[in-house]
């Protein structure tokens, strides 16, 4: 039984890192712009499809496609914020922290992207078979898939990279300042909407980076992003709004509870247990585990 639980613990950490990879981009957008990006899942799916077609049409390995997809994703996110979301903020006459219209707009964008992909590419499952890295690593009774291990390393790397960006760079200072107080930042001369656009772009780029790492084993269908996005919302709130390291921690907690709990109760019950833990943490610590902003 000890071996079984240990193996499940390792599987849970890997799964948690995968969740965190999806959640980090959302955490940035959610924490800084204070907008729940309902289109996060569909955008993530869109980047995955882009990576798939780069492999399918041009034979570009998903790990290599990062250098193409990440800039595209940044530009896409920047464009969405600047062209679609910014006018909604500007339209508000009074100071509104989270305009309701933006939520509806992004929910609508989610429908447009998901159904657009369904219309354009059909509902068939797609997946990359035979990427450059595959197979498993055996550590005694523990078996780890190499592509999934890479995702976990990417998740850890991204969390440290983003933490450095946010805390050690001028851009990070500005982003955090806007996240803490939009009006005060504007008074200090920070172009708030430019920072919002950069943050949105950064959130998308982070998701795209993680998505490319997931492509070698991930199966694509147009609705693939929604399930992950819901889990990402939970992780973001659990870890703390705006905290990328919180997203990593939240993801690992959820992943470990699901995997280890699943050894003792049915799989669906393990998911419920992870949600109960989430509720307990939020009740005890409304800012989340590592967040700056109260939910």
């Amino acid at each position, binding site marked *: 039984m000890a071996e079984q639980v240990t193996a499940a613990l390792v599987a849970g950490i*890997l799964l948690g890192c995968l969740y965190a990879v999806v959640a980090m981009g959302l955490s940035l957008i959610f924490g800084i712009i204070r907008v729940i990006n309902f289109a996060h899942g569909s955008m993530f799916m869109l980047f995955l499809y882009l990576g798939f077609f780069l492999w399918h049409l041009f034979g570009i390995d998903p790990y290599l496609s990062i250098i193409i997809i990440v800039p595209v994703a940044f530009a896409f996110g920047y464009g969405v914020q600047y062209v679609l979301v910014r006018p909604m903020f500007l339209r508000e006459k009074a100071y509104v922290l989270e305009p309701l219209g933006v939520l509806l707009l992004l929910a609508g964008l989610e429908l447009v992207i998901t159904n657009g992909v369904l219309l354009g590419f*059909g509902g*068939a*499952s797609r*997946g990359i078979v035979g990427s450059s890295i595959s197979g498993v690593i055996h550590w005694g009774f523990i078996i780890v*898939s190499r592509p999934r291990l890479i995702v976990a390393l990417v998740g850890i790397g991204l969390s440290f990279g983003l933490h450095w960006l946010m805390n050690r760079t001028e851009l990070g200072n500005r982003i955090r300042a806007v996240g803490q107080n939009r009006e005060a930042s504007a008074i200090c001369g920070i172009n708030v909407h430019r920072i919002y656009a950069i943050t949105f772009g950064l959130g998308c780029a982070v998701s795209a980076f993680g998505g490319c790492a997931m492509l070698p084993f991930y199966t694509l*269908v*147009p609705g693939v992003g929604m399930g992950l996005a819901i889990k990402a919302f939970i992780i973001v709130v659990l870890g703390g709004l705006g905290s990328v390291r919180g997203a990593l921690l939240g993801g690992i907690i959820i992943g470990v509870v699901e995997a280890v709990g*699943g050894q003792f109760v049915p799989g669906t019950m393990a*998911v419920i247990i992870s949600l109960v833990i989430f509720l307990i943490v939020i009740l005890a610590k409304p800012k989340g585990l590592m967040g700056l902003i109260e939910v």
Partner: protein
Amino acid sequence: MKKIVIVVAILLISSLILGGCAGPPEEPGVPRVPTMERPSEVNLGVVTCMTGGAAIQGQQMALGAQIAVDYINANGGIKNYDGAKLKLFVGDNQSLPDPGATETERLITQEEVVVIMGTNMHSAPTMVQCQKYKTPFLGTCMGAQIDKNFDWVFRDFLSIEGADDLVFGFVEYCTEKFGEGPKSFGVLNNDGDWGLNTRSIMRNTVPGHGYEFVYDDIFPFGGVTDFSSYLIKIKAAKPDFFEISMCSPDHTYFTQQLFDMKIDFPYGLLSLGCACEMEDYYATVTPEMVEYMFVHEDCNIWIKHEPYYDYLNDLVEAELGVPLDAYMLSGYSGVWDVKDALERTPYHHTIGVFRSSLRDALIETDISEENCPDRITLPNGATFCPALVRGIERVKFVHGSEPGSKYWTNPYNHGQISQRINDERIPVYPRFLHPEGKPDIVWPIPSWSER
């Protein structure tokens, strides 16, 4: 008193006069079709997954139904109503339970469809609405358990109870033929209506067949990206024979990770269909991952050798870009079942009466190769019965096997078990389906290290 007698007399005389104005009594067995009230169109409904996780299956089902409707309309419509055309309305349940209920209600109350067909997923809400509005529901692809009081529900699809009969029949056949077989079973089912129903039946039947039930779990349907924790538990349980119910993308993750972890099931892995009945699933896995896997197929997978394959496959590929499969055929044959019944249904301008008459006609359905009023002739002169394209011998409805059941089911729709051998799905059970000259059942299954 005198006045009362006069009034009664007037009433009696009036009733006699009015009675004399009525037409002759109907001859028994002759459909009553009012000559002045024939429809120009008959509305049919399909509720299925047009969007969401099971969209690829649902879209094919709807396309199959539309292909059949187009053909019927182009070839004289419903002759019983002087060539009335069929009009198809499609409701999208978004691969979720709740939208299925509202979409079914919309088709019944607003579009006034006479029958609902469907659904490739989440059929329970649709059944409930059809029963509530007394509209026939013809399930040509459904996994949900049917309430035994649902007398407006017709299942022209293999029943889960029947599927389990097939599974145990197959395992017992192999055990007898090869002199060895499993002692323990494990099952992993999705938490949709199909999976939960399968799970419930397996929990009740596995011990009854003398097998030890060593693993039984459920997973969130479409919500798992990593089956590692399940596989760790399965590995510890060591089942001899394993059964799963999964669609895409769950099935792909499970297959890939099972291959990575090299967990052996000595007498095989049986998938109950869905994902592994579709070609797109096989494009997401490698051949060695699925070699020797058993699949419970909903329809005849040897259809490629049927004369009508090219005709139907070309239509599907042109529209959806994917090859013909079971889901398209379920939508297609369902419309032909309904067409057959409409030809025997007296029209009535009151929709409720019309639906009730159609239900009566569906109950009387009996289509077979020998008794197929609607045959299609192909350019090469070959003919086929479109209601039987899924490889079933007959369409005839009887009450469900549960005591007191009022719903209707087609016992001739049994499905088949295939095995993947040398990168090809080969029908292996029931035995008469095994094609000559093709490899036969591999049993026991070689371990991963021996392959």
